[in-house]
């Protein structure tokens, strides 16, 4: 590499770093200016800032008791649901014999509350009749006019079609008993019509409304259950050409038995005329969507589209994925709660961090003289990026910084500084071998980056595995660890190395000034040249032809020299132990 190419490369990487930082600032700035919820102040977790405490009480029929096992199971499911909505380190525990207490940082929105308390009893039922949800008797039923009772569509043979006495256009459909039909006819979706925690008989038809109160339905018996769903996720619909559209959908994957049932149902419903070629998905008794079948679905996967947006499709997918709660809950109280750890913990933590950082700076100056400027600069850059990333992630991912997160960040100072130390020590090793500073920086970097990559790789592995497999606080920790590791890599590649390359060009450093940290006299390189023992380095260039074992040969000559000297200084080494 020519001199100017090195400088150019270094400038380019520094520019990328600048772009990264300015980009982050711009994104967050834009997010807060447009009121999208972004802020330059990171959100704090429950232990530092407090939040909301929600007490959930089970809704059970009189006479039945909630078992401890049901409660523990409910806590686990709620924790998964809360975790799915971000890295907020919520606290969930039981209280007394009945209640569950959920404490989450900040104020929960309606979606979060729904996610927490909803028992998510999911059922797939065939649509038998449908009409407008807010009915005056005179509107009649548009569904009735087209519905033609079909023997195959009647899951229950016991019911007999019976025209209603009012004589409005609501012909009965096979399989709908009189009581359900009467309830359906008088059903007004704008009024509350279901008791909290009402449980429907899965073998009987029901009359109900959709969640928007726009339509009311008579639905046949349950054909597929929520437990038949193996997985669910939200995403945008892609067209046949693979282009992404703006339509949100929930993708369902059924278990093997579920996909059999679903194939049977869709096979039977698809040839029917509207509305009976539709099936409804009910959540806790309300229709969330009643799609018209586009095909017989046999593959075990289905996609539900409709009036979803990003949040509602994700909320539904999470509810489907994390299963139904064994019992229904209602929110008994919802109150603000103060920080569990008091604010003095955060102030002291930050104070300690500042003192620690100062000590690190002093130590680097003692160890690396003027080179400490690069260390301190790198730490400052790392701190800026970390702060911005945390602000960005608390906006996009619901990340909340807890006290253990702060401690993790303080420890990260050490691990980040280690990358520079490994690098500087490598450069010094190269200097000891008699290379020029420019050459030492380049070859030292090549060796150091390998070590940095593999050791950071191990840390990153820890972060990814723990994030994927754990819940609660551990997940928050894994997040912080992964974040700081990536930032460490970015800073050492985009800042520390290019800075050193540029500084190596300056007279102060390249002349090996005694305060530069690269004083070759202090590093002992010249004394070896004087002794002549250092001549081995000339053999290095000769051996460069032996490509495969170049590194080993060089190391061996060194080591052999060491071995020879070892014999002479044996008594000395014994002493130093």
């Amino acid at each position, binding site marked *: 590499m020519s001199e100017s190419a090195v400088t150019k490369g270094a400038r380019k990487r520094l520019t990328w770093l600048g772009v990264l930082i300015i980009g982050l600032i711009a994104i967050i700035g834009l997010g807060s200016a447009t009121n999208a919820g972004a802020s330059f102040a990171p959100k704090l977790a429950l232990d530092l800032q407090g939040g909301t*405490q929600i007490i959930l009480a089970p809704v059970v029929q009189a006479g039945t008791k909630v078992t401890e096992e049901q409660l523990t199971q409910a806590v686990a499911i709620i924790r998964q649901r809360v975790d799915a909505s971000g890295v907020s380190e919520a606290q969930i525990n039981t209280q007394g014999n009945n209640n569950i207490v959920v404490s989450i940082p900040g104020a929960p929105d309606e979606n979060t509350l729904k996610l927490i308390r909803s028992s998510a009893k999911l059922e797939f039922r065939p649509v038998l009749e449908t009409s407008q949800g807010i009915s005056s008797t005179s509107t009649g039923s548009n569904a009735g006019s087209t519905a033609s009772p079909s023997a195959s569509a009647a899951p229950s043979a016991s019911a007999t079609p019976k025209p209603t006495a009012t004589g409005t256009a609501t012909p009965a459909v096979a399989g709908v008993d009189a009581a359900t039909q009467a309830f359906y006819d008088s059903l007004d979706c704008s009024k509350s019509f279901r008791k909290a925690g009402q449980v429907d008989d899965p073998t009987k038809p029901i009359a109900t409304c959709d969640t928007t109160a726009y339509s009311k339905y008579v639905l046949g018996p349950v054909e597929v259950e929520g437990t038949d769903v193996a997985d669910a996720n939200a995403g945008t619909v892609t067209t046949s050409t693979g282009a992404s559209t703006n339509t949100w959908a929930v993708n369902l994957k059924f278990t093997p038995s579920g996909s059999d049932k679903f194939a049977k149902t869709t096979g039977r419903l698809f040839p029917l005329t509207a509305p009976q070629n539709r099936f409804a998905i009910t959540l806790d008794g309300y229709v969330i969507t009643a799609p018209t079948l586009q095909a017989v679905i046999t593959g075990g996967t289905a996609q539900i589209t409709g009036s979803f947006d990003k949040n509602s499709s994700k909320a539904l997918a999470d509810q489907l994925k994390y299963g139904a709660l064994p019992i229904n809950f209602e929110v008994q109280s919802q109150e603000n709660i103060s920080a569990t750890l008091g604010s003095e913990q955060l102030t*002291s933590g930050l104070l*300690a961090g500042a003192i620690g950082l100062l000590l690190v700076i002093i*130590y680097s100056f003692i160890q690396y003289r003027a080179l400490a400027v690069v260390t301190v600069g790198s730490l400052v850059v790392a701190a800026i990026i970390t702060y911005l990333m945390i602000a960005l992630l608390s906006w996009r991912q619901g990340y909340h910084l807890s006290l253990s997160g702060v401690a993790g960040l303080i420890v990260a100072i050490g691990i980040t500084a280690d990358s520079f130390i490994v690098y500087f020590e490598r450069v010094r090793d190269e200097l000891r071998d008699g290379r020029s500073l420019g050459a030492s920086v380049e070859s030292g970097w090549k060796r150091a980056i390998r070590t940095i990559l593999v050791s950071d790789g*191990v840390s990153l592995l820890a972060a990814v595995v723990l994030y994927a497999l754990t819940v609660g606080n551990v997940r928050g920790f894994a997040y912080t660890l992964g974040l700081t590791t990536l930032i460490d890599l970015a800073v050492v590649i985009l800042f520390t190395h290019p800075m050193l390359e540029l500084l190596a060009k300056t007279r102060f450093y390249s002349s090996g000034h005694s305060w530069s940290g690269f004083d070759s006299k202090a590093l002992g390189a010249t004394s070896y040249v004087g002794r002549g023992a250092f001549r081995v380095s000339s053999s290095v260039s000769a051996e460069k032809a032996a490509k495969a074992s170049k590194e080993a040969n060089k190391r061996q000559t060194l080591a052999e020299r060491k071995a020879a000297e070892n014999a002479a200084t044996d008594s000395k080494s014994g002493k130093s132990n």
Partner: protein
Amino acid sequence: MSKFSDLGNDLYTGARSFNFVGRRKIWYGVAAVMVILAIVLPILRGGYNFGIEFRGGSEFRVAGVSSQSQQIAIDAVHSVVPDSEPLVSNVGTDSIRVQTKQLTDLKSEDVRVALAAAYKVQSSSVASSFIGANWGADVTGKALNGLVVFIILAAILMALYFRTLKMSAAAILALLHDLVITAGVYGALGFEVTPAAVIGFLTILGYSLYDTVVVFDKIRENTFEVEFSEKTTFKQQVNLAINQTLVRSINTSIVAVLPVAAILFIGATLLGAGTLRDIALALFIGIIVGTYSTLFIAAPVYSQFREGEEKYRKAEQKVLANA
């Protein structure tokens, strides 16, 4: 400073050398004693002192208070159970929530009365109940699961990178040593095991392995094709690698431990017991033990695993014959 850099130079060239590998029997002995102490002492103390986050406990709710000062509650709880660190939070605008470890019915009633007196409210406006663990069995189970998977994957990653399973084995042995000792100090001192302490513990796991990998990378470099050398043995090359990275090991551990020591100092003097002190203590011990074990356990164990291999034994005999 000049002395330290002289040391760095001498260690690099081999002019001075600490015999890490040769004296391994001493280090193994020290490690064995430490590990036994780390297991026995907590048992003698009566097991680990788990916090209410793991075990659940008693909760008191003081309603209608005029002052939401949390110190009042802490003092009131301490007057009945001096050894419990209560968690106090303000709920709403006029309530206080106090959580303590599980108390007996009698003690619980005493705390209720003490809280009522301290906040100057009727004792009927202090409600008490039991709370379950918010770090339940499911969290612990998943964390352990994640830990095991991580250690297996890390072993595979290291085996692929270093091209030998023996390095993975040595690194993980040192890791276990660190974890047992860090946990042992916790148990022996009887500090409460809180979620923060567990997080500190996991941080150590990452740090310890990281530190070992850095030194192992130098060992890999130094021992490359050492079986063809006629002047130096595998054992000597491993020892040289430890010595050559010694300055880095010392510098890194000092830099890592300085901020933690600052937290520990401030946490212990200004705040007394609490999350910060708990987590800083786990980290402080872990970083020191982690650095120590890389030098005195991981590297010597790795050398021992490999120096017996046919090719290295033959090479060593040749070197000894030459000497």
